[in-house]
């Protein structure tokens, strides 16, 4: 399979995925969107193996590797910080003057909608970090170098 055909297929899969997402939101079937996403990514990985004119050499592998490592190094801190906050909310067992504390800080539990926004924020953070680091390392390892040839 040619590279352009692959990108065309990926575009079609993305459109189909968008339609499924919309359908699952309308019908409130969360599982449908989740399953569709996993299947779509699986299909893309399988098709990617059939592409003949994309060369994955050691430099591109190194760019991906470095970008992934750096993304993980930054992302886990943000993820851990948010998780700590979530765990504190879950536990919520103040031991010092509990009555006074509860008066000053009435219990606030994140609703499912707010948790969804937090998850979306984390997802966006991860994507932005990866894209940013990828651009940085691609530039570092000479992706946009020009030559006289």
């Amino acid at each position: 399979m040619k590279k352009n055909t692959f990108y065309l297929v990926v575009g079609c899969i993305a459109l189909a995925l968008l339609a499924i997402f919309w359908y699952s939101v309308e019908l409130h079937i969360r599982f449908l969107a989740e399953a569709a996403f996993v299947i779509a990514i699986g299909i893309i990985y399988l098709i990617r193996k059939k592409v003949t004119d994309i060369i994955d050499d050691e430099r591109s592998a190194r760019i991906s590797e470095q970008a992934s490592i750096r993304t993980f190094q930054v992302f886990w801190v943000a993820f851990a910080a948010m998780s700590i906050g979530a765990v504190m909310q879950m536990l919520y067992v103040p031991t010092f003057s509990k009555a006074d504390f509860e008066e000053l800080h009435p219990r606030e539990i994140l609703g499912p909608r707010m948790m969804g926004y937090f998850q979306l924020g984390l997802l966006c953070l991860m994507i932005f970090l990866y894209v940013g680091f990828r651009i940085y390392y691609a530039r570092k390892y000479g992706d946009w170098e020009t030559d006289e040839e």
Partner: protein
Amino acid sequence: MPGNTGTGRPMKNKIKVFRAMNDLTQEDLAQAIGVTRQTILAIEKGKYVPSLDLAFRISRHFRVNIEEVFQYDEAALTIDID
């Protein structure tokens, strides 16, 4: 321009010279050793230091020893240490 191995040690290469001697374009060399043209360009410009495997493949392609193509810049290393 010296490249960086990731350990702060500089590496130089003469790929461009050997390409000219063998009348090869970057694309020709890239196809022959199974990498992208951008990788050859990045190595020539010292932006990327190839693995030992790729360095051997490049030098074998030119039928020379690896040290004729790639040079370890001891002088720059000494400056780094000082």
